[in-house]
């Protein structure tokens, strides 16, 4: 028998130990959260630091004389002449106005490399639309060449000036000082498809591609997933076949995504003869990939509906179908939605399966339908990140930011929906 005094002493000592343990446990938690937050901060700082220049475009504003003689063009409506004409000439002439001593052949070539290679097309398009402008002088804004763009945006950083000659740097510095070369918000990024020229490349094509693909994925995966979950939870007989299906659904959730790409390639493109690189096939593949996630989370949501509600409805004489549709599904909906949106976010960031069905192609046009060739955001980022031009690297970072913004808004939507639909009992 322990004396009372000594027992209290023992308890007191063990209390100390318990509190110490508790404090230690809380510390672990705080450290874990701090590490997670620090990693997140590092990620954001790195991406934003590298990528914010992707949202800046560099332009050069020139007074261009559309001199027919210099362009070898006297009739802008003549297609043959238009295809032969030299639209670069007026731009070089205009630049020579700033630098009259640059007349040598090599100087002219270096001058022409200050503006982007699509600048000539801009003049051509202008003349096609307004043939009467031939011979007049226009103030036009052109995108500068990629090398100039990164040089201007990273002024003073040696790493970004290696591809310009000292002479070009001198010119650019002068033009920047005069305000001829200027920077602004990169609207090109959000209004065009991909391009070989970083300054001219936009992410709109990939955004549209992702959007179309996600629509297909959602339209297929959500109803199929929820129906499968409802059937398995509420109606399926408890037998070996059901168990077998269950095990396989759980296994499918763990299958590497590239396998689904192979499946899509063999089935949708090989067997059904669907076109390559299109959002429909991409959406179908991602729907297959997302289904297990949706089914598993929906089943968990259905399981969490209290049996008392089911009993209440059944006791009222509701049929099985009515119990499910009036009570179980509405109560499980927030959980089902959360699972589905997590699955969708996963699909949005998926690259591997889409590579196999050809959504990795270089596509300039912005897709306008479910059957037009398209690429998606993560694939676009992958394509840009593996390009040599420095301009593409910052575009890749900008693309990551756009993708992250998409994900965060999807998650915000999920939380909002859950809060709206959540019912307490």
């Amino acid at each position, binding site marked *: 028998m322990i004396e009372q005094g000594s027992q209290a002493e023992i308890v007191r000592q063990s209390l100390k130990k318990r509190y110490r343990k508790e404090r230690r446990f809380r510390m672990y938690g705080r450290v874990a959260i701090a590490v997670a937050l620090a990693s997140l901060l590092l990620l954001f700082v790195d991406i934003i630091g590298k990528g914010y220049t992707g949202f800046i475009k560099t332009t050069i504003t020139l007074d261009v004389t559309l001199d027919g003689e210099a362009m070898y063009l006297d009739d802008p409506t003549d297609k043959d002449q238009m295809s032969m004409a030299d639209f670069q000439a007026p731009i070089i002439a205009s630049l020579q106005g700033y630098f009259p001593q640059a007349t040598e052949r090599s100087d002219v070539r270096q001058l022409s490399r200050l503006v982007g290679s699509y600048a000539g097309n801009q003049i051509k398009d202008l003349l096609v639309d307004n043939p009467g402008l031939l011979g007049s002088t226009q103030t036009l804004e052109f995108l500068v060449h990629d090398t100039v763009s990164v040089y201007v945006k990273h002024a003073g950083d040696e790493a970004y000036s290696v591809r310009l000659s000292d002479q070009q740097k001198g010119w650019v510095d002068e033009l920047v000082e005069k305000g001829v070369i200027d920077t602004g918000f990169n609207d090109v990024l959000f209004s065009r498809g991909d391009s070989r020229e970083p300054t001219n490349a936009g992410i709109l094509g990939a955004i549209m591609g992702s959007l179309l693909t996600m629509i297909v994925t959602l339209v297929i995966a959500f109803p199929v997933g929820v129906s499968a979950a409802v059937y398995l939870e509420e109606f399926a007989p*408890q037998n070996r076949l059901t168990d077998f299906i269950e095990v396989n659904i759980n296994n499918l959730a763990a299958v590497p995504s590239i396998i689904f790409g192979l499946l899509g390639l063999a089935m949708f493109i090989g067997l059904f003869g669907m076109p390559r690189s299109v959002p429909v096939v991409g959406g179908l593949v991602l729907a297959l990939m997302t289904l297990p996630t949706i089914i598993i989370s929906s089943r968990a949501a259905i399981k969490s509906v*209290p049996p*008392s*509600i*089911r*009993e*209440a*409805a*059944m*006791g*009222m*004489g*509701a*049929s099985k179908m*009515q119990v499910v549709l*009036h*009570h179980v599904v509405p*109560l499980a909906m927030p959980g089902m939605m959360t699972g589905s949106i997590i699955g969708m976010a996963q699909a949005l960031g998926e690259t591997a399966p889409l590579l196999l069905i050809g959504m990795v192609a270089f596509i300039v046009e912005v897709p306008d339908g479910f059957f037009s060739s398209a690429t998606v955001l993560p694939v676009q980022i992958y394509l840009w990140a593996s390009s040599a031009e420095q301009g593409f690297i910052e575009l890749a970072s900008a693309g990551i930011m756009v993708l992250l913004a998409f994900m965060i808004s999807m998650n915000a939507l999920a939380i909002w929906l859950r809060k709206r639909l959540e*019912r*307490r*009992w």
Partner: protein
Amino acid sequence: MNTMNPTVTSETGAGVVEDKVAPVKEERPAEAELEEGVTVGTPYSDDPKFKLRNVEVFYGESRAIKNISLDIARNEVIAFIGPSGCGKSTFLRCLNRMNDSIDICKVKGSLQLDDNDIYDPSRDVVELRARVGMVFQKPNPFPKSIYDNVAYGPRIHGLANRKSDLDDIVENSLRKAGLWNEVKDRLDATATGMSGGQQQRLCIARTIAVSPEVVLMDEPCSALDPIATAKVEELIAELSESYTIVIVTHSMQQAARVSHRTAYFHLGHLVEVNETNKVFTSPEHNMTESYITGRFG
């Protein structure tokens, strides 16, 4: 084969057992003492609503209800009492086939409601449950508004075509459940925000909104405080004028207060059925006596 006893009287049991013997726990009487299919007292009635003969219920291999025969008379309140696990809830749930949803549960024997077999394969269980409503142990209102809770049954059964009809049904049901004055100003409020007692009365209102013939109550007051319990008991007394009520209860005082007849279950056997005051004053079976005097259970 049946000894038809005279009609069951409908006077409420007044003789509440006051002289509860101090709970000297004796060993539980062995099952061998009970003879299968033998019930003392007055299990049969002249005017049965339910006619139940040789009912057996199996959960997989185990036999939860052992050869029970019982009549439940029209417009009577019958209380099922007995220790936990004696099968009274299981038996109750056979009456509107709530056991159907349990795969391993099998019911044998003849169960008739107004001379129609309840377990006839061609019988529509939805129609049965519209006639035999149920109130559960824990208040389980739907997480919807008070109005929608009561209107749910009439809606799914198509009992009201017009909004005004539905309004009438809701008001009448809430009035009968003694809840109208408390909630008439907040019919759109969510039902889960009410107190436990109000929730249970709402569940009763919801059940009687479809005008069932029978109301089954599975320990309706076990989650309520004494005041809410008193209200529900009053309600049962009023409802007994127009409904047949079967109530499972652990409270013997409650059985004595609300019921006309009391059935004592033990380990799946129906030991004794008698008028309530008889059960509580002079039980025929010695096991009934042991139970109500608190010697076990």
